[in-house]
């Protein structure tokens, strides 16, 4: 994780998400995936379009992480969740709700925020 060198595809995704213009990649056969992609992992095609990320996702599973990696020390404890946005799922940190109120089925939106420990970009779910 160098400060200078960008991660093509990934950094652009976060910048777009921060601008409220989150997207996912859709191959010409309709399979959703996350960047960077040159080949669809489902069908192997190489043509993609950027489609708007659905505004609402549903929490499918979650955990309260109490022992974090050093890069997340100041963030702990935090809730990590997998949320289903339809064509894709995302993994993010749940903010804006008490940890014991996070539940499977909770409806969230994905936003770009920062990691408390390092200031690195962080995918965050907030209740909607």
């Amino acid at each position, binding site marked *: 994780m160098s400060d200078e060198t960008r991660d093509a595809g990934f950094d652009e995704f976060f910048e777009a998400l921060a601008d409220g213009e989150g997207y996912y990649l859709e191959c010409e056969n309709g399979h959703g995936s996350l960047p960077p992609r040159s080949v669809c992992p489902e069908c192997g095609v190489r043509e993609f379009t950027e489609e708007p990320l659905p505004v609402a996702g549903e929490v499918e599973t979650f*955990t*309260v992480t109490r022992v974090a990696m050093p890069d997340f020390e100041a963030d702990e404890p*935090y809730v990590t969740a997998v949320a289903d946005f339809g064509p894709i799922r995302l*993994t993010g940190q749940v903010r804006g709700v008490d940890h014991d109120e996070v539940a499977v089925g909770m409806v969230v939106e994905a936003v770009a925020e920062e990691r408390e420990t390092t200031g690195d970009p962080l995918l965050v779910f907030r209740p909607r």
Partner: protein
Amino acid sequence: MPDVRVAGTGITEFGSAPERTGRDLFAEASADALDDAGVDRADVESVFYGNFMGELAEHQGHQGPLMAEAAGVDAPGTRFEAACCSGGAAVRNAVKDIRNGETDVILVGGAERMTNLGTAGATEALAIAADDLWEVRAGVTFPGAYALMEQAYFEEYGGSREDLAHVAVKNHENALPNDRAQFQKEITVEDVLGAPMVSDPIGMYDACPISDGAAAVLLVSDEYAAENDVEAPVAITGTGQGGDRMALHDRDHLARTPAADAAAEEAYADAGVGPDDVDVAEVHDCFTIAEVLALESLGLYDVGEGMAAAREGETTADGDVPVNLSGGLKAKGHPVGATGVSQVAEIAELLRGDHFNSEYVADATLGVTHNAGGTVATALVHVLEVVE
């Protein structure tokens, strides 16, 4: 096609030995395996070696030749990396190499040095088995990833932390006579439920420890064994590997492990056997939920039915199919690169009858190993049988 025989086994003590280098650990395990086999080191044609975090733990790449040298073997060495199933991957490739007739004698092993990193450092190192961009940068730890699977399992199929506590209790019980285990300590369901939480619903006693250690097996062709009077009654008769999408969120199932389903199916077909033939199993219980997922992938239980196996006493030492008689990763320890090889060594010893827990499986003729990488984006299954 040659039969692949386990001619010798060697497992170091697993535990905390932060000062011991990977080469030091592997040298001990491999020397023990060669001694056990009674095979001249000059006959070893290849060294297949599993290791996951050598670059991070001891700034060491290119470990193949290093480990061949450490073992005192004048043969080329190659390292296999597949996260926590690096050792299983080394075994599988050795099996294929012997079967295709290219090679007769392969020293297969694995080692990991982890405790020198400290808990935080080891947690960070283990996390790189997940997708760096889309999981690690969201704060997913290794226990966190399995906690996501466990929560999904509870949602989909039911079960409780108490059910899973019985897995930990069972595996600690099994390790009591295991002098090479990290923990020889009896625990109770209350101990498990009362331990500090790591990543809910996974508590400290649901998780395997951070461990240093090494394991090795000497694999030979049946022809070599016969010509050289090597006693090797156990064969690896089935090998299977499955793969899946790297990130958990890209999988078809959050509460199942399709890569292990595929590995088991391939390994059983390869051996011409099925789940009903299994007498004993060593499975990858890095967390208690992982043992349940393994039982279901191996077909020992239907999907959603494996949760109560330990609680009902079906997988305990005196159960129908004892699982993790070694103590499993939970109690014997999990030096990542060594684990898959140690499982093969344990089953070989159990089937030979000279394992510390052989008394529980005196009539056993067939055992399986299940070794998983990351959140099971890779899985290796092997079938071992008594053939003589």
